[in-house]
């Protein structure tokens, strides 16, 4: 009887240790899978989706947006598709987003992964849904395979664009090869483009020469070092800029001193 408390304690501690050990092993395998599974930078989300990192945190994978879509644009990622499983996405080359003005897919979202405020316009505290505010992706043109840049007349993407003349415009330039024709090249404007993919859907080439990329992949960022001095609104970015001073061995002294110091160089 005397030894029983000790052996009970030993048994408890041992089973606890075993549980922790097995958990650690499980965590290793499980986290490796989750890490790979959530990394899908090439996926296009429904309108109003939060940034990808926040989106996959929030989305509960219920498919209510998929059911709300009248065009069957959205589908839930199936196992084996290399998209975080069960999350909604669309493939514009197959079915683009047709930009419903009442955006049925967004208000039904129960988890907040599709954010209504991000696609609402506020006039005197009254919100109305505005699909043109959606930023699902950005159309990017591969000039090599775009026949309009060859000089062949094609404006399929320009005509398909729901923001005709705004998100895609046609730029004229002289065709030096023939000397008497014009190039009519499509140009995408990222400040207008919603990423609906109707251009990609309409493109006549075998693999679309214009395709939608997630904005995080398609766009760069200038940073605070360069400002359009001729644009008063761009000057505003200076307000958030920080002064950075880079110190190197050469910049310790003043410029003149450094240049005059022949030995130091």
């Amino acid at each position, binding site marked *: 009887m005397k030894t029983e408390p000790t052996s009970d304690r030993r048994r408890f501690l041992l089973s606890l240790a075993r*549980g922790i050990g*097995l*958990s650690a092993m*499980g*965590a290793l395998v*499980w*986290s490796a*899978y*989750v*890490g790979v*599974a*959530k990394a899908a930078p090439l996926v296009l989300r429904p309108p109003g989706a939060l940034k990808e*990192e*926040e989106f*996959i*945190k*929030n989305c*509960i*994978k*219920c*498919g*209510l947006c*998929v*059911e709300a879509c009248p065009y069957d644009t959205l*589908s*839930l990622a*199936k*196992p*084996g*598709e290399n998209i*975080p*499983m*069960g999350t909604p996405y669309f493939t514009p080359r197959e079915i683009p987003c047709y930009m419903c003005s009442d955006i049925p897919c967004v208000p*039904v*979202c*129960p*988890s*907040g*992964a599709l954010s209504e405020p991000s696609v609402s316009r506020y006039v005197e505290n009254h919100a109305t849904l505005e699909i043109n505010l959606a930023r699902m992706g950005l159309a990017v043109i591969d000039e090599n395979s775009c026949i309009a840049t060859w000089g062949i007349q094609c404006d399929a993407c320009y005509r398909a664009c729901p923001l005709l003349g705004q998100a895609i415009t046609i730029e004229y330039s002289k065709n030096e090869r023939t000397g008497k024709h014009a190039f009519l090249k499509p140009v995408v404007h990222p400040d207008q483009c919603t990423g609906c993919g109707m251009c990609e859907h309409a493109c006549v080439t075998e693999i679309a020469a214009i395709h939608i990329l997630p904005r995080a992949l398609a766009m760069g960022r200038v940073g605070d070092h360069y400002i359009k001095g001729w644009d008063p609104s761009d000057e505003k970015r200076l307000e958030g800029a920080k002064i950075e001073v880079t110190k190197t061995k050469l910049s310790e002294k003043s410029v003149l001193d450094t240049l005059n110091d022949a030995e130091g160089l």
Partner: protein
Amino acid sequence: MKHYRYLLMRRVTQLSIMALYIGANVWGWKMLQGNLSASSLFGIVPLADPYAVLQIAVTGATLGMDIIVGALIVSLFYGVIGGRAFCSWVCPVNIITDTAGWLRRKMKFSEVQKRFFLNRSLRYWILGLGLGLSAVMGVAAFELISPISMAHRGLVFGMGMGGGALAVIFLFDLLVHENGWCGYVCPLGASYALIGQFSLIRVYHDAVKCSDCRDCITVCPEKEVLHMINQSSESVVMGECTNCGRCVDVCQTDALGFSIRSQLKQSKDEE
């Protein structure tokens, strides 16, 4: 027929719920839209899987109001009628694991193989691990691998390779461990077991009527909950009971039946 009453009722419930979900996606029915992770009842009442919502919460995401309310409604519902009633009356995986368990009994695998070597508490470790990993990885970790959501999504929205996960569960339950998935591994079932700790609807055992045939223990997927059989008259109080009613079905002597917990306590006190 009497001996399959609850089994048939469960299958009808499971299949009807499935049909409502599929109908919502295919024909636009408005009764029950979404899937078992989150749904909308009649387009008004939000429902959500409490364990999934908890995983999302620990990732640090700002939760939508609908899934908070939905998770509360579901917790309250199963908190009253028996948490793991979800497992045996709603979950589609139950049909697969029940089939595997039945085949295992028919083919007498359990007599040849070691039946139980996993620990019943494994599922609670997995439940905790799922929450921990969700917090660390910034994404609901079990929802990314859950064969239950995978199966249900597959049935409603198209299967992909999701059938493979179900086949694995079937073979695991058939060849590796009796009631292995639902009884030992599944953290979703574990979460409902915790929710249903104090639920009201319970199986009651009347030891006086018991003939000690042990049929109930043979069919029970959570045998520990029937520890009182032929020993004392009391209700099954462990949260792990799935309220499947198979024990009530197979009992020849009416020694088992559904009852309400509070009344039972009163009647016991009077005795």
